[in-house]
């Protein structure tokens, strides 16, 4: 595969054009008003509906199930464009990568039952319940249990930082099916379930919104003897960790593309501002400190973009991409933050004014440095698995 190539220019021009046109209808005002809704922001229903109707959210679903069968790179371009246009795909991006777990590891019946409805927008698959209050990056130690019972499982435990749970019809749930002391490998004993949220809501599941700095509709979920059917198990029991790992690489590529989109939004916005804004007799942009700050951020953005493209192309070619997906995630997180800081600094106190949209995007971008993986875990991965240093944690 050493002769495989990847694009360095504007690929998927039609998606870039069409998504940008759609986003024009959802201005900063739309997003600001959503943030004002109690308890801590509201779901962008109209925006998600428009994306769904245009088919953008289902491009990664195979054609036989009603999607377009595109590679992950196409999804990345769509998400990047959404963010570059000042909108946010946070409310709906999970569908692209959680769907992959169902697609790659679900059985024929599960795929036939759900994928066409996800593609048409009839069902939302936006929630992915992994993190727990006492189990963050150390995923294999999760404590939420799914115990075998007649016809299915009983779930007990708690999840946290499950975004969009209240707005999703389906949720991927990672839960322990064998105790940690009864498995041979640390990664064994956890399973993936596709949970019907309407059923679970009636059977003891409770969703509590978390009041957070960014409007990602994130929640805590409590499970008290929640029954889920045998048919909700994805793949083989006890092998769930493996199933979500490849989905995580796709997720890292996709959310990195969002960070790239945000970074380009900040550069566009800051450059326009410093060209027109004058002080002390000249355009801000003529000041070397302003200019070098933006140039430095832009340079980091450019190479982060290339690393993300490379990781995504490796994923799409079916090649190993763990190192690149992690490195792209770290680079894009740092690049977007450099661009966000440069933009806020370029605007000065004006940037704090909500109707400039700078502060909202700046808050959003801070997420890229923590989520969905800690930068320290990325450095652990590269140190141990790329450089061959001893495990440090």
């Amino acid at each position, binding site marked *: 595969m*050493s002769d495989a190539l990847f694009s*360095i*220019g504007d690929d998927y021009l039609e998606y870039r054009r069409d998504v940008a046109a759609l986003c024009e209808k959802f201005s900063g005002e739309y997003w600001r008003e959503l943030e004002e809704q109690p308890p801590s922001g509201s779901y962008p229903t109209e925006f998600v509906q428009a994306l769904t109707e245009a088919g953008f959210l289902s491009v990664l679903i195979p054609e036989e199930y009603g999607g377009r069968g595109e590679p992950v790179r196409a999804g990345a371009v769509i998400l990047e464009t959404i963010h570059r246009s000042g909108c946010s795909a946070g409310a709906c991006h999970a569908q692209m990568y959680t769907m992959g777990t169902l697609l790659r590891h679900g059985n024929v019946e599960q795929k036939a039952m759900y994928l066409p409805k996800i593609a048409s927008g009839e069902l939302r698959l936006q929630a992915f319940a992994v993190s727990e209050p006492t189990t963050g990056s150390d995923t294999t130690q999760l404590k939420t249990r799914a115990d075998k019972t007649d016809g299915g499982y009983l779930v007990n435990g708690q999840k946290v930082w499950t975004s969009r749970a209240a707005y999703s019809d389906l949720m991927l749930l990672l839960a322990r099916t064998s105790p940690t002391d009864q498995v041979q490998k640390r990664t064994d004993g956890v399973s993936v379930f596709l949970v019907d949220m309407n059923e679970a809501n009636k059977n003891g599941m409770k969703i509590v919104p978390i009041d957070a700095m960014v409007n990602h509709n994130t929640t805590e979920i409590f499970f008290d003897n929640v029954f889920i059917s045998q048919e909700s198990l994805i793949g083989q029991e006890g092998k769930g960790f493996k199933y979500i790992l490849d989905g995580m690489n796709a997720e890292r590529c996709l959310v990195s593309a969002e960070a790239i989109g945000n970074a380009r939004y900040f550069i566009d916005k800051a450059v326009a501002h410093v*060209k027109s804004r004058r002080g002390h007799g000249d355009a801000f942009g003529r000041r070397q400190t302003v200019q070098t700050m933006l*140039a430095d951020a832009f340079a980091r953005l450019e190479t982060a973009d290339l690393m993300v493209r490379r990781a995504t192309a490796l994923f799409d070619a079916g*090649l190993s991409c763990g190192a690149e997906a992690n490195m792209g995630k770290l680079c894009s997180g740092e690049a977007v933050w450099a661009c966000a800081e440069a933009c806020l600094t370029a605007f000065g106190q004006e940037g704090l004014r909500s109707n400039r949209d700078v502060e909202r995007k700046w808050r959003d971008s801070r997420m890229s440095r923590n989520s969905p993986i800690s930068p320290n875990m990325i450095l652990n991965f590269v140190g141990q698995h790329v*450089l061959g*240093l001893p495990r440090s944690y």
Partner: protein
Amino acid sequence: MANNSTVSEIRIPLQPEGYSDVRSTVEKICANFPGAYWRTLERKPLGERYPNDFINALGEAGIMGALVPEAYGGPELPLEAATVIVETIHCCGCNAAMVIAQYHLTTLIIEAAGEHLKARLLPGVAEGSKNLQSLGHLEDRPEDSSAVNSSALATMTGYELTGSKSRVLAAGHSSALIVSAKISDGDDSLSLFVIDVADALRNGMRIDPLAEMTNAGTADIHFEALSVAADDVIGNPGEASSIMAKAGTILLMLEAAAAIGDGRFFSRRGVQYAKERVVFGKPIGTYQGIQFPLAKGHIEVESAAIGLAKALALFTAGADAENAASVAHYLALDAAWNIADAAFTTHGGFAFAREYDIERKWRDVRAMKLAHVPYEGDLTAIGEKALGLPRSF
């Protein structure tokens, strides 16, 4: 020249393995020039520090003439191969300053010089018998580096050159020297003159070798009414700036390649030492304080390498590569310096011990951030040309 729509079609290799034969040839040569060679060279008397044996070995293998067209007896390798050579030399712990200079000036001659100069210089470069590494462009201690005082007085047979040039690389070791000067009674524009060094040393040119922090083989050069034939001007009189600008993009890519090679040298050496050195009962690479800066540095170096691949792809396609080259140059130097410092910290006190070669390469990287295009120069170029901001200096 590629237009924007074809730029979107340009792809770069997913897993670059190009010119592996060139790489292994260079590696074999470098193996004969270990750290001890370079350390000894640095301690020789001033004026005797030029790496003669190394350059001769590269010359005999055809490496020094890699870019010379077939018509002049060279292999006419593309620029990408030249960057692989430079990167490999630095990755092996050697120094390619003279190689970069030779490729830069060879390109300048190929692109801009008349047939008589090409025929005089290029065949010797191709067979390794002629060095083309000295460029006199900076003035001796001027108040303003953009002010050039060297002048060429037009005579019946050509010009008489008077003035001084500072920090000329390989002075006294290069067969030819290229000098920029104003033609007296002309306008302020600069012209490029080719000087035969052996002749000039007999006719009023003086070389004063410089003691510097790194062994850059630099010297100050003074001319007193040195005769230059009318034919020995590159291009037309007054064209120096445009000729230099064009070759400047190539120089950026070559220097970026050197920095990436340095980054890989420090990554390898830092990791190796972190695995071997045991403190507090464990290899120090186990500690995140040591491991993370190395992991971070590795990520930065490999990102910059993709940045360079993009610039080369644009250049090869005949598109404008200047912005991409500036981005790659800036981040390659940034990455090399960060990982050089991380490897320095990893080695602790032993970093200061000359036998480890860490301090020598560390000094080299810091010096490279100052020349030829300083690191800060990249930022003003990106600000002006990539972001479209006003000139800031």
